[in-house]
């Protein structure tokens, strides 16, 4: 069986930094036979099909538990070799100029090819929502490098989900999380610190339940598993006008630059999620000029997308619901109009189904439209208890 190994050698001072070669490891391949160019197109046939791979990882995500980001479920063996280095691979790939088939010798655009992007994406961990069903329809959780919009009626749990994500992003790497920090931009004043503390406690108790062995060393080694620690790792901005909101987002780029670790290898203390709760509130006041509003908003969303890509973080925008007058009747839609609906990569709508809360994945570039129930409990967002319903694909 042919096994592909990925490794890098330094290309010297010629400007292009590290080069990555795909090799086929014949037993005892002498070093001088290192092939500078990818050998054959046949290797593409050896690759696992991206589509099937995604579905298999999404499938395993669905079945796995709720505590940890689950789309880092083990890839097939060949894949695992390819991604040697585990979670570091994504970052490593991102920081290298990639020279692979199809890309030119000097790769003048600095472009990545789709294959590398895919492998990078699949090596990424996702931020768990706390509910396995919800993670299931989202393909493992909230994705980094993407902008996700979450909307719903008041009281359905938008803010709860936002706070939950700000806590869950901090689950340490050794417990299957991202070990990142969170930026929470609060425009509505619903960020209640006592509730954040509760959710952090709930998250910690679930971690300890999931990793019972860590109980023994928890007294000494787990200083970071304290709710206080979780709270302190949220950068909280309270915004009182739309001008402040725009200023905060402009400032974000500078802020993230300052808080980025110099050593790329340590990404434990990086901001991995930016939550805006809600993006809407200050834009529904006195914008008589709707064209201006659209322009301001699309600039804002472009900026956020840029930040998401550049800093490898997830952007979550909470949105309100409004009634729209169409064809003689009022219907509920997400606020900010039609042009805004194009500005987010993913769109999730939270709604009530009787007395149960449901999430509906309305828009996603890669996942099917689906809905799943979730619950808001004292500990935070969780699966609906004793729920064994299958995810309904519509």
């Amino acid at each position, binding site marked *: 069986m042919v096994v592909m190994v990925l490794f890098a050698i330094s290309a010297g001072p010629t400007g292009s930094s590290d080069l990555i070669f795909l090799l086929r490891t014949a037993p005892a391949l002498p070093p001088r036979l290192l092939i500078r160019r990818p050998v054959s197109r046949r290797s593409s046939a050896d690759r696992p099909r991206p589509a099937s791979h995604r579905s298999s990882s999404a499938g395993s995500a669905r079945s796995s538990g709720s505590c940890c980001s689950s789309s880092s479920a083990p890839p097939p063996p060949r894949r695992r070799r390819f991604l040697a280095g585990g979670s570091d691979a994504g970052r490593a790939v991102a920081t290298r100029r990639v020279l692979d088939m199809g890309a030119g010798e000097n790769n003048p655009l600095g472009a990545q090819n789709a294959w590398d992007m895919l492998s990078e994406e699949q090596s990424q961990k996702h931020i768990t929502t706390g509910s396995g069903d919800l993670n299931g329809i989202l393909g493992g959780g909230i994705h980094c490098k993407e902008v996700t919009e979450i909307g719903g009626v008041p009281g359905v749990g938008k803010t709860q989900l936002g706070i939950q994500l700000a806590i869950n992003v901090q689950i340490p790497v050794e417990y299957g999380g991202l070990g990142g920090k969170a930026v929470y931009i609060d425009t509505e004043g619903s960020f209640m610190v006592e509730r954040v503390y509760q959710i952090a406690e709930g998250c910690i108790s679930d971690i300890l339940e999931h990793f019972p062995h860590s109980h023994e060393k928890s007294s000494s080694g787990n200083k970071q598993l304290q709710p206080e620690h979780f709270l302190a790792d949220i950068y909280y*901005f309270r915004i*009182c006008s739309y001008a402040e909101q725009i200023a905060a987002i402009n400032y974000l780029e500078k802020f993230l630059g300052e808080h980025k670790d110099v050593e790329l290898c340590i990404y434990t203390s990086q901001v991995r999620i930016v939550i805006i709760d809600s993006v809407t509130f200050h834009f529904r006041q006195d914008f008589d000029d709707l064209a201006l509003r659209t322009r301001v908003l699309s600039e804002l969303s472009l900026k956020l997308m840029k930040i998401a890509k550049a800093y490898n973080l997830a952007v979550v925008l909470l949105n309100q619901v409004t009634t729209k*007058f169409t064809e003689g009747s009022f219907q509920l839609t997400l606020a900010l109009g039609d042009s805004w609906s194009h500005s987010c990569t993913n769109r999730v709508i939270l709604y009530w189904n009787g007395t149960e809360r449901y999430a509906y994945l309305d828009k996603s570039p890669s996942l099917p439209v689906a809905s799943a129930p979730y619950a808001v409990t004292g500990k935070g967002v969780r699966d609906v208890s004793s729920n064994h319903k299958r995810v309904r694909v519509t």
Partner: protein
Amino acid sequence: MRPPAPKPPPPPASSSSSYSRREPRPENPLLLLPSCRAAKLSLGCPLLDRLLSGGLPAASVTEIAGESATGKTQLCLQLALLAPQSPLSASSLFLHSDLPFPLHRLRRLAPKSCPNILDHVLVAAAHSPAELLSLLARAQRLLSDPGRSPHRLPIRLILLDSIASLFRADFDASPADLRRRSALFFKISAKLKELAYRHQCVVVVTNQVVDVVERDAGNTVAWSSGRRVSPALGIAWANCVNTRLFLTRELDGDGAGGSARRRMRVAFAPHLPEQSCEFVIRRDGVFGIEPPQR
């Protein structure tokens, strides 16, 4: 010989003050935790306080919705009288849109022991959204400059009774008017929230109810007096409040003359689960009652 030490960078302390004025500055939630827990306005009843996990939170807007005679105004008056004696130690600003101001009820509720407690209740009337906004602008000046009246406690409680009656007139059901109306909601709410945040105020807004005729459009619905009701002003206003308390009333048995069972329900709140508590209105105020033991 050592080279001269590089010139030290300018001390960050001096630059950081101007820096913080220009740029948004993140806060550490951990440092906000003690004040978040302490700065709650008690309702003066342990059962209702338990429902609200200590009382009404500061720096956020709480709506009390309910049909007429469910105790909304009563609760507001009670809060206004409790605020000076509570740990918040605050004056209140009572903005009313329904005439007349219930002065007699306020006097009857005021404890005899401290006769000058009414000094700490400031009252102003607003009859239209525009009037309310200009009042709020004046309130902002009053709040930012508390030195004006040293004998008075700082204002930390704003009561608005009620938001719905401000919007009774002047607005049609046409889409253009509805848009104008909801823009005003957001404007008022943003102002209230800003005051609440900057001065750590408790803000309470009362709201009336409307009957629900068609399929509910995502708004809170409850049964009260045998009617299916929803807080007034629709889903746009629902987006404007942080916490919604719903007061409902059920008539016991045959209704006429029978005592009503009143309930305070947490419809939604960022920090509270959905739960409810029965209460009664007595001569001396609103009090929760224990659920009957089964």
